[in-house]
């Protein structure tokens, strides 16, 4: 069972980020593994382990040949990685990103299942996994809180507001997993040392057969016109409790339709 995991390398969320003049996030510094992708990596390792064979391949698109985040996932136990790094990819929107990832998955070859996070911690579009599925012509299952492989199918519990739906699809397929699908392991020192020698296949858009006009600013269907600070949170409404506090709270909750 071979599983590919789409992993994004992002600026450290603990460090205040900044925007470039083109309104995109400045990604020139050191990047780290998006924590939301560590769940997919762990899930993939467990599925391969349960299948008794196969390997986990990482798929990542990042500027400046960045591998720091990939090293973390390789140290967790992934076998190898494909890194797409190319100045032509700057300004890629979600669809361009999906094209690159889909081509990379084809390049990896012999993949039974692709895992991805439901959304990245920096972009938050949440559309890429389904787009990749469409481009590959594979079923895409989203928001999975539980994943298992049985009878040559992938079965997931799809998180809903009220609970979960049980959904299954034939393989190959792409599945997006929520944080909490499994508890990601901490990489061991042995894993970190082993990761040093694991292969990272560095490729450009052209290597994937993508024309520069299809990706980056040139291929983007989306344009960032302006970026503004989110409005500060409005102050809440204050009630002095004159003996009717409980009723007022209930009335407020009813207005929100939560009771």
């Amino acid at each position: 069972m071979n599983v590919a995991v789409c992993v994004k390398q992002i600026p450290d969320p603990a460090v205040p980020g900044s925007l470039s003049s083109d309104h995109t996030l400045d990604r020139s510094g050191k990047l780290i593994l998006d924590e939301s992708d560590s769940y997919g990596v762990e899930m993939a390792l467990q599925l391969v382990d349960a299948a008794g064979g196969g390997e986990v391949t990482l798929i990542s698109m990042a500027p400046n040949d960045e591998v720091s985040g990939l090293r973390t996932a390789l140290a967790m136990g992934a076998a190898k990685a494909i890194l797409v790094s190319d100045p032509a990819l700057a300004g890629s929107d979600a669809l361009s990103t999906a094209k690159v990832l889909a081509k990379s998955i084809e390049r990896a070859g012999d993949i039974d299942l692709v895992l991805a996070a439901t959304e990245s911690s920096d972009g938050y579009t949440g559309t890429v996994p389904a787009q990749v599925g469409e481009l590959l012509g594979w079923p895409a299952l989203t928001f999975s809180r539980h994943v298992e492989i049985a009878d040559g199918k992938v079965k997931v519990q799809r998180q809903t507001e009220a609970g979960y739906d049980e959904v299954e699809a034939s393989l190959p397929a792409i599945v997006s997993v929520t944080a909490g699908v499994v508890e990601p392991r901490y990489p061991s020192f042995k894993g970190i040392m082993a990761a040093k020698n694991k292969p990272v296949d560095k490729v450009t858009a052209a290597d994937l057969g993508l024309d520069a006009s299809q990706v980056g600013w040139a291929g983007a269907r989306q344009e960032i016109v302006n970026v503004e600070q989110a409005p500060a949170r409005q102050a809440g409404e204050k009630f002095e409790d004159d003996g009717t506090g409980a009723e007022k709270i209930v009335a407020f909750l009813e207005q929100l339709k939560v009771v």
Partner: protein
Amino acid sequence: MIVEFDPTPEQEQFRAVVRDFAEGEIAPNAAAWDRDHVFPVDAVRAMGKLGLFGLPFPEEYGGGGADYLTYCIAIEEIARADASMAITLEAGVSLGAAPFFYSGTEEQKQEYLVPMIAGEVLGAFGLTEAEAGSDAGATRTRATLDESTSEWVIDGQKTFITNSGTEITKCVTITARTAPNEITNIVVDSGTTGFVVQPPYRKMGWHASDTHELVFDGCRVPEDHVLGVRGEGFKTFLRILDDGRIAIAALALGMASACLDASVAYANQRQAFGGPIGRYQSIAFKCADMAVAVENARNLVYKAAWLREQGRPIREAAAMAKLYASEIAVDATREAVQIHGGYGYIDETLVSRFYRDAKILEIGEGTSEIQRLILARGLGLPVE
């Protein structure tokens, strides 16, 4: 001359992993463990799962095959969150497992070292007695060979023994007098008849670390429970104490660096008389002095670890690192409490716990006075 101060990228990556682990799994619980005097077995097992107990040992025994500096970095990072868990790790590795690695037979390594490395069990080292600590020659615990049953019969007691009474403690390696001028290391399994673990001490700090007095009353263990060569107990524990001092120094370094970070953050955040207290030189300069001390300690600890990795003599370097790092840790915790003012005296704050936890660093694994004695002797002085 080439001087290289940067740890390798892999060492830095592992530091980040251990820091993540310490911040995620240990720091949120440390105050409660301290308050309730709980030895958190699950957290110890989690450290085992992360491979911390096997770091400096070879992979053939399940170890991480890491260099000594990597092990020190792990202790430093755990100590930034909780000194109790750091000493549990340090004692588990340097005092529990290391004697088996250095002196054990292959059979002993398989039986004891392998599960210790996995973090499934803990070993302890029993050297100190009521009237013998650094003066190990005064050891009174006696082991007499009963030829008729091929067993050692052990009588005596040991004090302040770390990790000796946890639910996962597998054994205690003790120093015992096996002839008038002969000290031998003998392994006593937990639960052996005649081996009594007294209730845990009530300590000033290190509340989540397990420390007991041990009593041996006609305790019988098989003859082959000697660890290493009979009569070479001195040699073994001198070696493990030298190594252990570097690790204790790393622990002290972690505590001091956490105090520095907490102090700087607090000095920037706490407002008094219309601005952060960090704008006062009386506070800012304390932080500056603390930064110098932390930097010095780090250089001493890392250099000692490097010397050990090179197979060079480490006695003086280890003593210097241990002496300096433990004393600046006590200073740093005291000044950090001062900077935090009243909040620094409240149980729940990190610096308050660290203030109580730091003092033992100047005492355990050789007092500051013993370190100075080692150094003075190394200088060729006729000091007694």
